[in-house]
């Protein structure tokens, strides 16, 4: 995982500030962390 991706993931993973939208947000954030890591891996090949 690149530094930029790690920094973004750390700053955005905790959705507790979002009240009732936290669950939907955290699912989206987690999937995009996996998605971006997968795309980066594909680009490296």
């Amino acid at each position, binding site marked *: 995982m690149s530094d930029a*991706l790690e920094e*973004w993931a750390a700053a955005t993973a905790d959705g507790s*500030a979002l009240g*009732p939208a936290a669950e*939907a947000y955290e699912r*989206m954030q987690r999937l*995009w962390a*996996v998605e*971006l890591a997968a795309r980066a891996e594909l680009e490296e090949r």
Partner: protein
Amino acid sequence: MTQVTALRWFRRLRGVVGEVRSAPAGDPARIVAMAQAYRRADELGGAVFRRAAAGLEEYAAVLAAAQAEHAGLRAAFRAVPPLLRVGAVGRLVRGCVQAHTAASGAADLFARRCGDLAGRARIAVGVEAGLPVAEAAELASAAARGYDSGVLGLRHLRLAGERLAGSAEARALLDRAASDLERAWLVKAMAAGDAGLAEFAEAIRGRPADWLAERLTLVDRHAPGTQSRLGAAVRQHEPTTCGTTCLIVARAEWDPRYALALTSAEFATAFRAARAAVHAETNRWYPRFAGTSPHGMARWLTRHLGVRHRWRAVDDTDARDVSRALRDVLAAVDAGDPVPVLVGAVVPRHYVLVVGHHDGSVLVFEPSAGRTVVVPDRAFLDGDLRGALGFPHLQAVVLPDDQAGQPLSAGMSADGSK
């Protein structure tokens, strides 16, 4: 009945008291800081991150205003002399409930956006299900355009990972496929079940893309338009089969073998026979002249789509209930599951099938006209669906029980009972 009504009022009263005592939940300052983190990482996530940041900022603004309004109302109430407070209670309660309604609506709107964005992280779903990255990327992008996120829904992608991991036979079938698109259709069929897989693979081998699209689904989901297959309209041809038609289309979206069984015969005849069979199957006790009960819809989908479905009435006089229902419908649609919804005016009247979602627009299959139409999500919230769907209000929804898409547990029977 009286006890049920009393209990409902008690719960409502308790909810109102809670909304007067507590401000809407959330921390607008931290939400803004999260939005800035998305903007700083623009080169990573591009348009998706910009939409996430904009959604966070809009949510934070509404939440901050609602919390300020709530605090102002409570401060104003405390400033009223105790003997005069009785007259001020009404204003306090109304204002606090409105502040919570605004914050709740903003949370639902943001959750719908998150669902839309999560639905685009399609490689991630395949990777989490155990597929190699390259294969997940190939399957995730097959035939995606417009409202159509591709051949495979997220539930298909999840199940495909499990089924491919343990089956050399399934791998061998995929290896014989003539194109990436053909592989995607095969994987979709595998996710829906094992029966007749080799025959299905044989039937679609070497077929061109337009043949596959015409025969392996019953509606085109990429854009609005009139729906037909092999020259025959895909619509309800009887006054009471709107629900039946939605069920048939939903099953065809889940399992391409079902679609192929209809389209490989003379389609108009096969479709007519399917409507008769499904209508009979869903209405053993319910009077057929009244259409299909929501319970019958949910039971049929549970039996044929491999995931438990439930129906839920929507109180169309309660803005928050409509907002919650729309949020849940779109979360399911973003995961690739079409969702039947019941619309009406004074009473429920007509089923339509929600099949796509992109930004603030919803793609709906309207069976009486046999076409897909684009409806702004605002029209659901405002009870303004008459122009697009014939009736103004959302009144019930039929949802997959587990939007994460887990198959039925071992202890659960096909009709959803334990």
